[in-house]
């Protein structure tokens, strides 16, 4: 038997459950169930296996099955003062990766696509396939993990992943002030964890060594008097994917009530985002990929990552 043969009965069981024929849809926490289209009613529902398989804080990597909730994973990592870029808002690891949405604090945590080092997924043929590798640095072969993040389970069903972990900063402090220019603040700070703005109020997350957080708070003083708060504002339901610069034009007329995350371009709004245009030649490559990976269209039928965000 080759070293590469996957022997974990849990993964093999999942592959068997997915099988080689018939439509299947993978169910995570259903927190983003309608994203990219409703699952076809003909699809058999399967759920990815759960559990943290191995966690090596010294390597800053964790091997976890895709059905594990992000909350459970992060609770385990917190014991060693670590976290990942995955958003904490309910749902599973596999679901978060398949949807591919960043955490609202992605300035500090990094985008979710940087978190996935290795992925094991069940292919349309019912086989377990490995993409990427276990180490924090790796350029061996084509980057299947990147292709899988945000793919909505249309190319393969994630069974187990190895994620990059990051040290949780020593100090995290949320501050809030009225009537300041959030863009000027973004320029003044070195590496803020997040800057959010609703058109009048600005929230700033400072992270790092206590001394640095204190120093950056001092730096903010000339802008306005900032008050310490527990956390970010409530985020409206709809995500608008804009450029960082576009956020300068955020306004109630267009975006209703909104919270813009400065520096990233992501805006949360009470209004649904307009449909995004995708170039025809991007659609062509994407559809070709889908045909190669899933010729019969049995994986998560009804979902299409090219469909607008809700």
């Amino acid at each position, binding site marked *: 038997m080759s070293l*590469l043969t996957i022997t974990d009965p849990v993964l093999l069981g999942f592959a068997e459950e997915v099988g080689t024929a018939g439509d299947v849809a993978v169910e995570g926490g259903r927190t983003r169930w309608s994203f990219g289209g409703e699952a076809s009613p003909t699809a058999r529902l399967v759920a990815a296996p759960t559990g943290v398989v191995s966690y*090596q*804080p*010294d*390597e*800053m990597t964790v091997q976890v099955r895709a059905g594990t909730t992000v909350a459970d994973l992060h609770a385990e990592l917190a014991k060693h*003062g*670590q976290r990942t870029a995955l958003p904490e808002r309910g749902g599973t690891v596999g679901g978060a990766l398949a949807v*591919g*949405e*960043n955490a609202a604090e992605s300035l500090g945590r*990094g985008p979710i*696509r940087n978190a996935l080092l290795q992925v094991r997924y069940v*292919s349309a043929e019912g*086989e377990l*396939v*490995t993409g990427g*590798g*276990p*180490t*924090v*640095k790796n*350029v*061996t*072969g*084509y*980057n*299947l993990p*990147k*292709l899988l993040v*945000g793919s909505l389970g249309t*190319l*393969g069903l994630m069974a187990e992943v190895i994620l990059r972990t990051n*040290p949780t900063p020593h100090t995290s402090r949320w501050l809030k002030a009225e009537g300041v220019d959030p863009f000027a603040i973004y320029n003044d700070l*070195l590496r803020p964890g997040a800057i959010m703005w609703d058109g009048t109020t600005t929230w700033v997350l400072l992270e*790092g*060594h206590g*001394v*640095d957080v*204190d*120093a950056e708070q001092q730096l903010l003083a000339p802008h306005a008097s900032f008050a310490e708060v527990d956390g970010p504002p409530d985020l409206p339901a709809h995500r608008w*994917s804009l*450029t960082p*610069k576009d956020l*300068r034009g955020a306004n109630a007329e267009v975006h209703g009530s909104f919270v813009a*995350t400065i*520096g990233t*371009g992501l805006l949360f709004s009470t209004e649904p985002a307009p449909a995004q245009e995708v*170039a025809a*030649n*991007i659609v*062509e*490559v*994407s559809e*070709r*990929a889908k045909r190669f*990976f899933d010729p019969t269209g049995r994986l998560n039928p009804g979902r299409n*990552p090219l*469909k*607008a965000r809700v």
Partner: protein
Amino acid sequence: MGVFDRVMNAVQSRNPGADIDPLVADLAASLSADRVRTDGASRSLLSHDASVFDGGVAGPVCYPETTAEVQAIMSVAEAHGASVVPRGAGTGLAGGAIPLGKPIVVAVTKMNKVLEIDLDNRVAWVEPGVINLNLTKQLAPLGYHFAPDPSSQQVCTIGGNVANNSGGPHCLAYGVTDAHVVAVEVVVPSGDVLMLGGLEAEPLGYDLRGAFVGSEGTLGIATKVAVRLTKNPPAVRTLLLSFSSVADAANTVSGIIADGMVPAALEVMDQRITQAVENYVHAGYPTDAAAVLLAEVEGLPGGVALDAERIGEIGRANGATEVRAAESDEERALLWKGRKTAFGAIAQVKPDYYLHDTVVPRSKLAEVLEQVYAIADTYDLIVMNVFHAGDGNLHPLLVFDAREDGVLERVHQAGEEIIRASVEAGGVLSGEHGIGVEKQKYMDAMFTDADMEHQNRLRKSFDPACRANPGKVLPSGHSCADIQALRKVPTGVWG
């Protein structure tokens, strides 16, 4: 280069006008005659990169200046059933840019403009031929830099960095090239111009940008790149720690990471390379230490001081014999100059070297290094180690004199054992140089046939006809690798 090719080249360079190849004529009509070279000297020069590998001989060499010209080259290639090899500065170490068969070489070095620096979006739009360090120099007055800093940054191109997903000493904290590429304009073999990714927060659809970065020129030619700008930190501290064993240095690195710190850089050099470097640049490296660790922390002054202190403590707890902080910018620059010119320093020891590139879990650094020294001993070779220790990225450097009988065989055998030892320790084949033609034959140490077939699906989604840099990355047996039959066994050695 075979004898036949040599003769053909000689004939050609004497009679450039005699070339009436219709492919060349079509290319010349699409660009301009002076930017399509067919002379033997150009073709022979572009038949190699910085690796030891020999492929075929370059076909016509094209120097496009615009995306439209790259498109035109692709159309001509398609019409003639020719393949294309994208090429930047040719500093690749895995043979990614060498021609297999007789492809059209598309050298993007004339596409070398920084098109726009967009501070509102914190990106720069650059052409692929922009030299890595030139971009950072241009950004310096604005207080920003391009974070990936390969040791070859004075010459290598951003297009090459994107294609190889290159790293560098400072990628430990900031991430390799992939983390700094926001969007890429690519001409795919069909001639279509695709914009992959985008400046918006979450571009819709599959992450084709992510799939392209690191694809070693096999998905198409990057013609424009939006790279992320990183703010220059106000405080930087560079420490030099000396050790009486390589294991102590390696354990210090694991200790630092385990302590929850991610310094900007953690680079280790063993005694042999340190001595060579010191002779070469006189940077003030201790030549009596068995290993040195170059550690850099950056950020805000308070945290930098704390981290620097903690690194010193961890070093001493692991047996550091000296912990020294660079006192001035000049001293710091000199230490980095030493590290970055390490490969140049080798020439004093032996005329030739072969640089390996594998990754192991950081906790296995000491153990695998010991194996590396033992393997070199077995094959009666000198090995030097200078590497990106912080992310477990080993760079064993086998130095030798190619004139010695049978030495090449030993070099290749030792290399293979080093690669296998790394993978067995839970590592991977390459951390930053890529697979190219160098490591195709080891791909099955990490991937099953099904895994590789899936990688091939990704490849074919961009290039169904296998005309972009065929014969690279995936081993033979997978489509697009078939051209390998044209390849000769590597003979030359990069000196």
